[in-house]
């Protein structure tokens, strides 16, 4: 499932890893959508990977925790784990807001 919001090249390439449609995964997806629409509108590309269907992909991005949001671009790679309920932290994790 790819949600593309781009005019040309996406500046933010995001991947959300889940394992089955658990309430926590759904919460993470909802929270992420809200944050992206507010702060990254038109600048991001989001891919959702269900590890139950593609277990091999867990190795590549070194996924342990579920859910994990990986910011693949811009570099450096960042990982945010959890249900993304703390918007402030997600923004810090995505480098959209300086950490305090």
């Amino acid at each position, binding site marked *: 499932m790819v949600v593309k919001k781009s005019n040309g090249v996406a500046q933010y390439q995001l991947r959300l890893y889940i394992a089955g449609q658990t309430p926590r995964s759904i919460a993470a997806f909802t929270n992420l959508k809200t944050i992206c629409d507010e702060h990254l509108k038109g600048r991001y590309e989001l891919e959702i990977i269900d590890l139950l269907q593609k*277990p091999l992909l867990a*190795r590549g991005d070194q996924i*342990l925790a579920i859910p*994990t949001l990986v910011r693949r671009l811009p570099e450096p790679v*960042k990982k945010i*784990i*959890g*249900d993304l309920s*703390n918007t402030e932290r997600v923004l810090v994790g995505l480098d959209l807001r300086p950490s305090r």
Partner: protein
Amino acid sequence: MCAQQRSPASVEVAATEIADGPISAVLSPPYRHDLPKAPTGIRGLDEITRGGLPKGRPTLVCGGPGSGKTLLALTFLVKGAVEFDEPGVLLTFEENGDEIADDVASLGFDLPALIKTKKLSVDYVRVERSEIQETGEYDLEGLFVRLNYAIQSTGAKRVVLDTIESLFAGLSNDGILRAELRRLFRWLKDQGVTAVITAERGAGLLTRQGLEEYVSDAVILLDHRVLDQVSTRRLRVVKYRGSYHGTNEYPFLINTQGISVLPVSSLALQHEAPMDRVSTGVSHLDEMLSGKGYYRGSTILVSGTAGTGKTSLAAHFLDAACRRGERCLCFLFEESPQQLLRNMRSIGIDLEPWVASGLLQFHADRPSRYGLETHLVAMHTVVADFKPTVAVLDPVTNLMTVGTHSDVQAMLTRMIDHLKTQNITAMLTSLTPGQTELERTETTISSLMDTWILLANDAVGGEHRRGLYVLKSRGMAHSNDVCEFILTDQGLQMLQKAGAADEASASPDIATGRTGWS
């Protein structure tokens, strides 16, 4: 310091082992419902655990840095895949691929080939705290997915997690981690895999993160101690639910063949006492020992001051054994094999052909190279590999430089005991420092000896004379005479026949032996 603590401990084992022997023998079939076990393939460890790790359950292996945890876990995994047809999965949090491959190569196995043939699967888990931001609730399902995939794709029966505690450094939510680890260990059990989980030793705890709380089936503790600049590795089975196991600390060795553990299992004094005899290699000496020589499987001590011919007597013994076609193992603690071969050629004993034909093997080690227990493990390993019927230790007194008397006594007791259980005829030479100290070194080990031959030098009338005397020889009528001998280019030759007492009295010093060794 350690010696005083250790010897009572080994006495204790002896007592419990003796007690255990007959009882378990009597109650054997109905009493024991044996837990299924997964052999580790590690020499000694399978004996201590009576067959291996609990099959289908997790085992915790803990120890400080460099204590051999990873090697033990890898050996379990690789041997499982190669020798027991149980494919394995390694989930490593620590080393990179090359290091693991090197470790496996040091065990004599080719990791890439094992992976290629689907006998092993290796997954490197990297957790970088600086890369990770935590927000809200999560679980470790990703880890489960990876592990499950690896297990399914290889049909794994064994799993190693090395070192899962690293997760605590990478993730900050301890509560989630602990709950997930608990779930993980339960899940591993549900999968029916035999798992080894390694963990770093913590202060006051077995592991830094208290993992022993979650893995409660079996716990093995590894230790690496340095005492007087000599290092000894030790292993202890702290816990093994539902199974009898040895509870002592067992020394172990890491060498080119991997890990070997030394079980002290044979102190039960139950070895057989064979009746057949083996020649000493010196016909007169055979005569002195009721005409037939030593008992097979017995232990012989040859002691004397420097230059009395101890090694020569040992060489005769080895030569005779090789002539009979027996496999001989010779431990040298002083000379190199080349030195010994050269010196023995000078008295007409050529051992070289036996070395060439593979009947005789030398094993030379400086006593100070490692601790006594490590020597013991090393000797056990060599004995197990070479399977000799005759062994010579020359000279055991050199071991005194690495330990106290009681240490050396304890070590030799175990070695002699091991040789006896294997029915190996053993000769130990002992260098007596000076006339006054004669008894000191020997008394510590003489009680273990079946036959004790004393050699002595005497300067009589400006002449150097050598004497030989059988101080004791259990279970046979032996000569009580002191016999003079010379070392010729045809070997050791007795000047007086055993029993020729009148001749012997002609040289009173040697004959009575009073000046030499009282």
